[in-house]
Each structure stands twice: as C-alpha cells, then as structure tokens.
C-alpha cells in the first residue's frame, strides 16, 4: 500500500517536471529566447551596470528636479490608492455575501471590480492618454482604476472573513443595515483593510514609474528621458531615489502593520 502511494507520488512528480520542461521549451521557441545566450549576457550586464550606473557629482546637481518629480509620483500613488479605497469600500459592501443589499447589485459590483483589475494598468493608461493627454491626472486615473478592482476583491475577502457573531447579535437587536455595517462590519475588518491599502501604496509607487514612462509624467518620464539621452549617471541616481522611497514606505507600513494586525 505504502509503496503504491510512493510510486504514485513519484509518477506525479515526474509528470509535473515533464510539463514544466515542455512549457519552457515551447515558450523559448515562441519567444525566440536562447537560454545560453541569455546566461552569457548576465556577467556582461552586471559589468556594464557597475561601470556605467555610477552617481557622479554632476548627476547630483539634478537631485532637486528629480526629487520634485519623485514627490509628484509618490503623492499620485497615495491619492489614487486612498480615493480608490473609499470607492472600493462601497463596492465591497455591495459585493460581499454578508452585507450585500441584493443579488443584482452584488453581481454588478463584482463585475466592475473584475473588469477594472483584469485589464492591465498599461492598457488603462494608454486608453486614458488618448484624451487626457500628458499630465498627472492620466496617471492618477489609470492607477485609480487598477487599484479599485484589486482593493474591492481584497475588501470583500476581509469582510467575509470577519466574525459573523457580532453581525448576528446586532441583527437580533433590530439594528438597521447602516448600524450593522458601521458598528459591526467595518470595525472588525478595518485593520485588515488598512493593511491592504498600505500594500497597494507600495505597489502603486512601482506601477507609477511604469505608468509615468507611458504617459509622460512623474519620475517615470524623467527616467525615460535620461535613459533615451544615454545619460546613465542620472539614470542611476533616479533608480536609487526610487529604491530609497519604496524601502522607506515599506518600512513604515511594516511598522504600522505590526501594531494593528
């Protein structure tokens, strides 16, 4: 018996590995990817990074400009996340099993969330760019739409996970829908929700760089500009400022999370 299970497990394992190898081979063929060539470029790439991505005195003179753009990007991500969180809260209350008003609204809320999260942020920014033009609002809206879908799903999960007993207790006392939501549902899931909001702010700062390259705003645009001008010293400085900003925000949110969760 035991031997049979072992043999079956081994067979499954072999099967998984075969699938992985086949998928790798097929993908390399489709994308014209050459493993050996790519491994060979790694040392060259790192040699290039260490010899070219150096922050010089000259680059440091551009620091005020860079910080201004970085500021814009960070504020854009925070604003997009917070405002999306407010809308997500309503969508999540409509979509969640415990707090939904009726089935039709619940389906609509889930559908809107799914649509906004599964269309990548790149697609949103390219679509919005056509009529909004090159300014912060385009990036803000693109991040807003993508965050809305993600946070709605996360909030629905947090609400569903919360303890049902207090909801039941309040229902038994004859509390209204809004009383139940504000006194039982939200206080229980709030720490979890804040944790998701902080996570999304971190993610959005990185996404904002990408959106910035596409829509010509913020630090992403700055990076793209100097990258295309082959001014790698400033490219290095911009990368470093982004790293410092992201790590700082990560540290702050880890501390907050440690207290509230």
């Amino acid at each position, binding site marked *: 018996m035991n031997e049979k299970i072992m043999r079956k497990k081994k067979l499954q394992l072999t099967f998984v590995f075969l699938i992985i190898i086949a998928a790798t081979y097929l993908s390399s063929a489709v994308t014209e990817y050459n493993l050996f060539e790519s491994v060979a470029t790694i040392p060259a790439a790192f040699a290039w990074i260490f010899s070219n991505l150096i922050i010089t005195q000259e680059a440091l003179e551009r620091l005020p400009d860079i910080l201004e753009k970085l500021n814009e990007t960070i504020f854009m991500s925070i604003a997009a996340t917070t405002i999306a969180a407010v809308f997500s809260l309503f969508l999540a209350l409509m979509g969640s099993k415990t707090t939904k008003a009726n089935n039709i609204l619940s389906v609509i809320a889930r559908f809107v969330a799914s649509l906004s999260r599964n269309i990548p942020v790149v697609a949103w920014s390219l679509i919005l760019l056509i009529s909004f033009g*090159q300014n912060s609002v385009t990036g803000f809206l693109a991040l807003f739409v993508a965050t809305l879908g993600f946070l709605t799903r996360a909030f629905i999960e947090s609400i569903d996970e919360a303890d049902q007993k207090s909801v039941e207790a309040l229902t038994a006392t004859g509390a209204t829908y809004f009383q139940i939501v504000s006194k039982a549902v939200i206080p229980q899931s709030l720490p979890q929700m804040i944790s998701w909001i902080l996570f999304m702010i971190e993610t959005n700062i990185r996404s904002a760089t990408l959106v910035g390259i596409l829509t010509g705003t913020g630090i992403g645009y700055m990076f793209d500009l100097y990258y295309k001008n082959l001014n790698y010293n400033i490219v290095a400085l911009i990368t470093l400022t982004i790293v410092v900003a992201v790590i700082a925000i990560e540290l702050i949110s880890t501390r907050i999370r440690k207290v509230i969760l």
Partner: protein
Amino acid sequence: MAVQTSINPAVIKRTKSGKINIKSGNKIDLVVKWTLWILTLLTILAFFFFNYTGLQIERAFTETLYNLRVMFLEPALSHFSWAEAFYQVAVTLGLGVLATIFGAIIAFFLALMAAENLSKPWLSKTVRIFVAFIRAVPTVLWVLIFAIAAGLGSEAAVLGMLFHSVAYLVKAFSESIEEVDPGILEALRATGSNWWHIVVHGVLPSTFTYLLSWTFLRFEINFSVAVAMGAAAGAGGIGFELFMASGFYFDLREVGLITYLILIIAIILEFISTKLKDRYFPSTVKN
C-alpha cells in the same frame, strides 16, 4: 476589597464634561485613526502637486467615455491578422512562463538560504536584505537596464522580469519552508542526514504543492507584467501591439480587441489561481 477598587471614582475615566468614558482608547485604534488621517491629508495635498498641463477635464471625460464605447462595442483588427494576434498573445504568455519558471528555480535555492529553520541567521538576513533591494526597483527599470546590455528582445525582458519573480517567490517559498514540521527535520537530523538529504527528503515532499501553487500565482502576475513590458520596454508580444495601436495608429477598435484578448486570458488565470488559493491557502494570501 476588589469590589471597592472597581467602583473607586478615581479609577473610572471621565471626559472633560464629567461623562464616563466608554471608549477605552488602545494603541491599535490610535494607530488606525492616525493612519487614516495622515492618508486623507496626503491625498488632499496631492492635488496641489499635480501637473495639469493641457488638461480639459470635461472634454477628456466625455471623449474617454466615447472611446471606451467604441473600443468595447466595436472591436476589430485592422493592422494584423487573427493568427498574428494569437501568436503575439502566445509570445506574451511565453515571456511570463520563462520568467516564472527560471524565477522559481533560482528562488527555491535562495529560499533555502533565507528560511530560518534551514540556514544560519546571518545568511538568512543577507538574502532577505538583498531581496528587499531587488524588489524596490520597478520591473520596467530592470528590463530597460538589461536592454542596454543584452539588446532589446526576449532575453532582456525575461532577465528583467526574473528579478521581481525571484524576489516575490523567495519571500513566499521561505515562509512555506519555515512552516515545515520541525519534527520531520529533527528526525532526519537524528539519522545523520546531511543538509541535502534534509532538503530532498524532508522539505521538498512536504512543501511541493505549496511551492507549485505560489509559482502559478506568480505566473498570473507575470502575464500582466509581460504585457506591460511589451508596451513600455519594447519587449514584444501583445503589449507592444497594444502600444502601437493606441500610440501610433490611434485605432480604438484594435485597442478594444487587444484589450479583450488580454482580459480573457487574465480572467482565466485569475479563476485558476482563486481555485488554488481556496484549496491550499485557506486564509487570505498576501504578497
């Protein structure tokens, strides 16, 4: 005596107007409140830092609504064929697969070094700091930096995407490894097994399904990353076609069709990973 202390008026907290305070403030509530206030304040401030060049908000909104209607109700291909479209989707999926699989292999070894139950504290810390640094650099910057050294194409894209996949998976894998029953490791150590024996016969069998699920969850993310890299870093695939259709041809019908293609794949991937999450990770999965 105990009763007396509990009704001692000095113990009961009162508000300034003399009412008994029924909300005892604790640290959690305080931090939650402050976090929300600061976020609100920063959000309001943000709108003063925005750059509004050339924005006509009302026209932009009505135009976008019109554009969205054209995109989603009249999708059509004009610059390439259906076969080409499917091929480009396959290229994007391929980039995602390669970055995920290579990322998983590298991440597995790094995770063994990062897991506290298998590694030394200094090694574990070094790997974690290294991974945190890698994660802080946006993927698009990695791809663009590698594009200079490796030339534009799938090599640079896969290498660039690899970095983030490794960083994400090391975190997930090392947490799974740390949850391995210490009894198993102890039993193996008692028999005199060396480190590799422990990994192959103790850690791998008990974590394999988790590692595979995490790898698939990363693949879901890597698909959208691959779309983004096609658009922003010229890595090819459906993302590049999307960029061309919207940025060069201004062909909304084509943008609509490409968006539909991406949406369908993304929803299928999300469906599979939700099933995996429900099965293997009963509590909320966090990045």
